[in-house]
């Protein structure tokens, strides 16, 4: 099992570098077009919006955004990492069920959790209503629409990234290193802080980076909590001042934040690499908790699960029942379901294939070009969905206007628009947005394979491609599966890009939900929302089953 920093992977297959570098650069070139379309807006001078923002709030926005990132980073690290450590290293009542139950919140869209949360805890919600009934009209809870409220909310939504990656990392560490520390006279606490956490650092950091990028791109939650961030300002400038250009320019500032996050992530990961040996060592012997410790562990897991999953899903179920009782017929979801899954499946396949190629290119040739390429390709995750969508729309429409007229002349019949509003364009937008999820997950898994295996494969005469297929892919199966499921579920839930780029008459579950929530008809949206959660649960449960059996 893992023993300290491993040697760097040196270029081993001298015949291939240009091929793999070229591949990485090529993939990035395509994925960077929408991002370039966003950044290119900086070249166009825009009116006085910037001056106005600078005078009234730009510093505040940047400060609030940084505060949010810090809060969500710390929150997801503690909650996600802490829960993973609890379930892997300990035995307590309910652990078996809770270990996988804690992954389920992944399937619930953030906008649903946010709405249920505010509905329950606000002044006019049932909780405070009861409180006033019992304790008098003066009784109230702290205001939910606050910084603390947003951080708690986003922590509950985004902790599963850290939890998922950390859980696998803790588990794969095995027992040897911790036992060595124990034999050398260190307490369990010291062994945890000095051995377990540092060795899981790549996974923890990758998970936290994902959570922070999500927080950066989020609009729905911050809008409903009335918390001002850069992303919130982007929408305010775009929808409120009809100034899409200035909004896109603000989005470029967001890219700076994303680049900073990725650099930080690389920096803290790059210096230490921990690999696992191919032969699995002894599995961690969990500590059996008893008494209040056991109660505390169970309580913590149940509490998080209840808030992040039971509460919003319960609320949805309640609305769905009310809606059906009120005689509202549930529309036929078969076609919607099929389209939703087809889009998510295609995106997951494409994104994860590209992620493997990019990550493997990085492993073969850790050159600056390849590293920068991988990071550029990941940037889309930190951009709000609507901004990415316009970034995809503009180049597609441009290509259509450039190509279609000559095609029409050649064929002698009108073709309309071929790329704009095509399913392919939509999948491209999804991939740009969610590649980072696949890439981070695959990269962490790949990093755990010791370079000696690459050497062995090479000595035995395998080329880079065949080593990937026969050695690396089988070893990262768990990580790859995690990546596929994460991208699939993210794509299913995606709303703004789907709305803008979908083909005509091509509605998905998310569109169906929007058509009702856009005018805050939440009860009416409950049935499609519940369907979305249920369908999202299937791959998540599959993931749990497959990754558990590996342990």
């Amino acid at each position, binding site marked *: 099992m893992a023993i300290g920093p491993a040697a760097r992977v040196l270029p081993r297959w001298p015949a291939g570098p240009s091929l793999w570098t070229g591949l990485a650069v090529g993939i990035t070139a395509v994925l960077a077009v929408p991002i370039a379309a966003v950044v290119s807006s900086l070249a166009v001078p825009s009116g006085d919006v910037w001056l106005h923002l600078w005078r009234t709030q730009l510093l505040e926005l940047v400060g609030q955004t940084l505060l949010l990132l810090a809060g969500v980073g710390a929150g997801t690290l503690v909650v996600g990492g802490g829960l993973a450590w609890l379930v892997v290293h300990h035995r307590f009542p309910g652990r078996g069920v809770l270990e996988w139950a804690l992954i389920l919140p992944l399937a619930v869209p953030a906008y649903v959790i946010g709405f249920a949360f505010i509905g329950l805890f606000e002044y006019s919600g049932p909780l405070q209503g009861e409180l006033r009934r019992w304790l008098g009209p003066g009784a109230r809870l702290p205001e939910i629409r606050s910084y603390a409220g947003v951080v708690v909310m986003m922590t509950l939504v985004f902790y599963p990234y850290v939890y998922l990656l950390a859980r696998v990392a803790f588990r794969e560490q095995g027992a040897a290193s911790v036992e060595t520390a124990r034999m050398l006279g260190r307490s369990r606490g010291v062994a945890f802080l000095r051995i377990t956490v540092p060795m899981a650092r790549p996974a923890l950091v990758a998970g936290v980076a994902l959570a922070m990028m999500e927080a950066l791109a989020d609009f729905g939650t911050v809008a*409903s909590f009335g918390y001002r961030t850069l992303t919130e300002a982007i*929408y305010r400038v775009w929808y409120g001042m*009809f*100034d899409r250009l200035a909004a896109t320019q603000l989005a470029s500032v967001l890219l700076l934040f994303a680049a900073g996050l990725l650099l930080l992530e690389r920096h803290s990961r790059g210096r230490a690499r921990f690999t696992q040996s191919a032969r699995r060592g002894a599995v961690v012997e969990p500590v059996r908790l008893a008494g209040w410790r056991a109660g505390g562990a169970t309580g913590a897991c149940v509490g998080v699960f209840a808030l992040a999953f039971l509460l919003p899903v319960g609320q949805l179920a309640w609305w769905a029942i009310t809606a059906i009782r009120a005689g509202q017929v549930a529309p036929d979801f078969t076609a919607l379901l099929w389209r939703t899954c087809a889009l998510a499946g295609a995106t997951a396949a494409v994104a994860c294939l590209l992620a493997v190629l990019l990550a493997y290119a990085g492993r073969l040739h850790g050159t600056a070009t390849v590293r920068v390429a991988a990071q550029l390709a990941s940037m889309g995750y930190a951009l709000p969905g609507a901004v990415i969508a316009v970034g995809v729309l503009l180049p597609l429409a441009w290509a259509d206007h450039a190509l279609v007229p000559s095609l029409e002349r050649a064929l002698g019949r009108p073709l*309309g628009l071929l790329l704009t509003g095509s399913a392919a364009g939509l999948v491209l937008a999804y991939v740009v947005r969610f590649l980072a999820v696949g890439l981070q997950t695959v990269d962490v898994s790949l990093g755990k394979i010791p370079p000696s295996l690459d050497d062995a494969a090479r000595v035995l005469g395998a080329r880079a491609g065949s080593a990937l297929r026969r050695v690396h892919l089988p070893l990262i199966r768990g990580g790859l599966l995690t990546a596929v499921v994460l991208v699939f579920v993210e794509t299913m839930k995606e709303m703004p890009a789907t*709305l803008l780029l979908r083909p005509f008459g091509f509605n998905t579950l998310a569109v169906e939900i929007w058509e009702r929530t856009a005018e805050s008809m939440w009860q009416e949206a409950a049935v499609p929302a519940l369907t979305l959660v249920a369908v999202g649960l299937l791959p998540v449960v599959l993931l749990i089953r497959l990754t558990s059996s590996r342990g």
Partner: protein
Amino acid sequence: MATRQGSRGGAGILAVVLGVTALSLAVTGESAEVMVYSARAHYGQEPAMEAFTKKTGIAVKSFGGESGPLFERLKAEGDKTPADVLITVDAGNLWNAARAGLLGRVDSPEIQANIPAHLRDPESRWVGLTVRARTIMYNTSKVKPEELSTYEALGDPRWKGRLCLRSSTHIYNQSLLATMIKRYGEAKTESIVKGWVANSPILIQGDTKVLEAVAAGQCDVALTNTYYLGRILAKDATFPVAPFWANQQTTGTHVNISGAGVTTHARNRAEAIKLIEFLTSPEAQQMFADANFEYPANPQAAVNPLMAKWGKFKQDDTNVAAAGEFQAAATKLADRAGYR
């Protein structure tokens, strides 16, 4: 007497005529449709659209999306757009589309007769379909209507800590402020907004949530669109909130619209105009208003009985285009006045 040859020729001609008729039928059958880009989501639209199809045989296809991105798609598609009609909520969005050259002029005496002048574009590129009044809402057990008068008066110190507002970032509030700017000028509008802010309003996202806060007693007065109250009252007649028509002695209550325009590059322009003419007729107007408790834009159409109880009110007759013209100014004004 027809010769053999003649009858053969006749049959041939008949075949050609039939063929051409079939073909032209097929062609008209194909083109008898309208593509609508709609930011008004789905609600309440099907009845009016279905009635149109039933009446004219013209099929209506609809593509929904958020107004900002939908505008970008329409613009990016340019002369190749399949969209014939754009429907959005808030006059500002229509004004913006017209400014970008996406909507074409429609000179229809029928539309002009159906819809009052302040609810349509002075240059005839868009027209209001429903009226959305944004007025004062109060808790019926805590506030007497005599205590209320105007939007301005909500800045009176007596409402300190008793006022709920939706955040200034929402387009309904921006349009309210934009209309005020057109009506009163920036300086006076800013002092009105500062008056609200001085009363430390509780900011809540979503009109429905604001109304729930008024009902629960978190605050006593608020500003919201009336149809949100209509929706709640339809489910719970005891909900303790009522509307007060603001500024009846002065400028009238602020109204906004959801409306429609024909796209510049519409392929089915004639059908598109026909659709909008139908949608502004009293028959369709009532369906619109009934479905969502909005007021019909056509004064001939009857209002929903639930809303009839709220009485008639005087609308601010400032042209709703002001919502677009002064939108950016309103956003900046709110920022300056500290209305978040």
